[in-house]
């Protein structure tokens, strides 16, 4: 038996530690841990509830807009205006969140994950005309290779021309990712940490000029997704087909859905959303029941054990707790382990018959000569993310044209003395939920259950490992000095540790009693 500790796991968001125990070359035990605690929910208490959509964005600088969205949904409900959002407000929220999702996916594939597959050193003797590649060649020639070296060595398999092409895409993606933030800012004000999404809708309405400015950037981005992002992912996958067969994990999936298509009085997860909500377990699609969500803290650095509904928790940090190894809690659904994220959303929508999802997934699988089962894998997650970006970007072209300049963008509201709300939406990394409880016009309690809390969770009260831990178990690690397989599996989940770690000190109230926007 041999233990490998990877601490920190870099090229993710935040502070993460992975431990695996090998029996021969096979992972027999795996532990995923978050190693940063800030205490957002404690800080939110007693403040004006309106501030939550600005403060909770600061949970994560990669996906702040998803927190703004979930928070605004929760506040809409708590303020009793969930049914009053003007169409402009609803559509602009979708466009702001959609922009952030595309940004996050491009950042993840190129700047976080690709260096595990693409060998930048292939550019050393480049002789062509591409300015980015010439800059990289000169950089290599100078010999100070940080931050790209040191790295794990020994499993770079792409042919030279593909390494060169993918390196060019890495550099191009630096500009395109910046363009996604510019696109978001047209309506959202600035990024990271935008200011456009507010309770009732958005702060700034559409004008023809803003629509044109948004559309121009969207077109540039769509071209990159179609010509670079999706083909690059498929090309990498074709050279790492064994990575379509590792890292499957728990194979149960959960999504809150995304992008409201009409103003609705229905509960969030029952709404007409462009990407539908649901769960998928053993190939069976089911409606989501928020009341089935619990969190355990048996192996988390908080007092107690669980499992409890998020709103029943009385969590207090306990850094030295026996048997605890993470600041992340263990959310479970219907007493089982579930994965969230773009793969979950794509599989749920594929099974539900979403036309665009079926079309894109079937085309990609045909290119790879693979069956849908291959999606539950390292490469499957990268592919799902790329196709998700493509489908969302394509849909946004129609949404932005359905804006009406001059019409309202925000419902009127005031902060009530008492109100409760829940906001559910899919962030770039999957299902994010915010719950707010307003008393005396202040935030009496605020609770978040976020994507990486699901995916990077430690073992629960029944010692069942979390999704990333399960994805690592059974994996063959070829070279323990260069554990490529381990970091590739972990990164395929796009972990966001700043999001995952938080704490609540709520006083009990039934989750089911919360009015959902």
């Amino acid at each position, binding site marked *: 038996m041999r233990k490998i500790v990877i601490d920190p796991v870099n090229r993710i968001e935040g502070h993460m530690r992975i431990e695996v125990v090998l029996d021969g070359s096979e992972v027999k035990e795996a532990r995923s841990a978050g*190693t940063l605690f800030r205490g957002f929910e404690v800080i939110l208490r007693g403040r004006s509830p309106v501030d939550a959509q600005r403060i909770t964005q600061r949970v994560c600088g990669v996906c702040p807009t998803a927190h703004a969205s979930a928070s605004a949904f929760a506040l809409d409900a708590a303020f009793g205006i969930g049914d009053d959002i003007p169409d402009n407000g609803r559509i602009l929220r979708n466009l702001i969140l959609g922009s952030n999702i595309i940004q996050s996916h491009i950042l993840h594939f190129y700047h976080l994950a690709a260096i595990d597959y693409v060998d930048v050193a292939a550019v050393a003797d480049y002789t062509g005309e591409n300015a980015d590649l010439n800059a990289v060649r000169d950089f290599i020639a100078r010999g100070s290779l940080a931050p790209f070296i040191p790295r794990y060595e020994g499993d770079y398999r792409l042919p030279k021309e593909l390494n060169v092409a993918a390196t060019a895409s890495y550099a191009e993606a630096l500009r395109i990712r910046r363009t996604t933030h510019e696109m978001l800012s047209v309506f959202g004000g600035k990024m990271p940490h935008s200011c456009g999404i507010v309770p009732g809708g958005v702060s700034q309405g559409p004008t023809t000029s803003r629509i044109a400015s948004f559309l121009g950037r969207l077109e540039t981005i769509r071209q990159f997704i179609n010509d670079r992002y999706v083909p690059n992912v498929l090309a990498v996958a074709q050279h790492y087909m064994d990575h379509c067969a590792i890292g499957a994990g728990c194979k149960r999936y959960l999504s809150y859905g995304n992008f409201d298509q009409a103003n609705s009085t229905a509960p969030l997860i029952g709404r007409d959303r462009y990407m539908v909500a649901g769960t998928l377990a053993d190939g069976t699609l089911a409606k989501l029941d928020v009341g089935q969500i619990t969190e355990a803290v048996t192996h988390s650095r908080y007092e107690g054990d669980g499992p409890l509904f998020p709103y029943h928790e009385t969590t207090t940090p306990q850094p030295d707790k026996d048997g605890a190894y993470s600041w992340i809690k263990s959310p479970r659904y219907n007493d089982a382990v579930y994965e969230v994220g773009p793969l979950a959303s794509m599989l749920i929508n594929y099974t539900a018959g979403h036309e665009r999802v079926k079309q894109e997934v079937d085309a990609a699988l045909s290119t790879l000569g693979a069956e849908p089962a291959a999606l539950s894998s390292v490469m499957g997650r990268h592919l799902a993310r790329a196709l998700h970006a493509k489908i969302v970007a394509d849909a946004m072209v129609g949404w932005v044209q359905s804006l009406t300049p001059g019409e309202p963008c925000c419902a009127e509201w005031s902060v009530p003395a008492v109100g409760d709300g829940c906001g559910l939406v899919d962030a770039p990394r999957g299902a994010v939920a915010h719950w707010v409880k307003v008393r005396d016009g202040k935030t009496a309690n605020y609770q978040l259950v976020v994507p990486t809390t699901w995916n990077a969770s430690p073992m629960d009260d029944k010692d069942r490992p979390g999704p990333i831990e399960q994805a690592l178990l059974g994996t063959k690690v070829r070279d323990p000095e260069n554990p490529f397989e381990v970091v590739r599996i972990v990164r395929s989940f796009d972990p966001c540790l700043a999001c995952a770690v938080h704490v609540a000190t709520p006083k009990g109230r039934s989750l089911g009693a919360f009015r959902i926007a």
Partner: protein
Amino acid sequence: MAEVTEYPVVWLQGGACSGCIVSMLNAASPTIRQLLVDQVVPGKHVSLLFQPTVMAASGELAMKVVDDEAIGEGFVLCVEGSIATAHPAYCAIGEAGGEEISILDKTCSLARKALAVVAVGTCASFGGIPASEPNPTGSVSVGQALKDAGIDTPVINIPGCPPHPDWFIHTVAGVLLNGLPGPEALDDLGRPLEFYGTTIHENCPRRADFDAGKFARKHGDEGCLYLLGCKGPVTYADCPTRMWNSGVNWCVGANAPCIACVEPGFLDQVSPLYEKINEERVARLLCKTT
């Protein structure tokens, strides 16, 4: 090829959200490629030895790069995020020699050897959100943590939640061109006056609305956002003229009040964010003498 000098930089993340490094990726001039790969100013290349979000290495391989003995001298230390002091486990940046290393210990040990320290963002500059009431992790700014440890390496504060990429990268370029900024180039809070020298209010394009009494009263309204809580009058930054995201927009441009995210009072002294400035709580406004 002309001679190029390498300037090593180490970037640690404490109690942070990665928003600062993501904002740096938005740099338009110099671009992030120019920063990472090319020369920020002719003949000078920033060699980013350690930055958790972008660096290739993980685990032991990465921690060796910031080993106190191995790293040598002559580097600039950048820190993103606040420094938790209540318990080392609140922020561990990695494992070395079988021990988890806290952000507090690593910041101090590297700062002792660094030429200068740059506190990137409001959490690192002033404590920010993690240090806001009730400050569950005993978080402090980088400057405070170093002061408490008796370390006198110069600290430049580049606050903002997040900071504009220009504020950081142009400061770095300035150091490469002219050396460390002298006291005359910084305000009383250690911020470069070039970026943080005037209030938002002074240069706000809606100043005419303020002077004419045209105020927005609810979200979505045009006009001066003072009554909706705009903290522009007590916030020192050049957002109105520099604008954000390659000049596309900025908070007030999107009808959103300034929330004073570059100020030491963020959050406690400037919240509720959507309520009119409470002068008694805004210590910065009261103590500003220039």
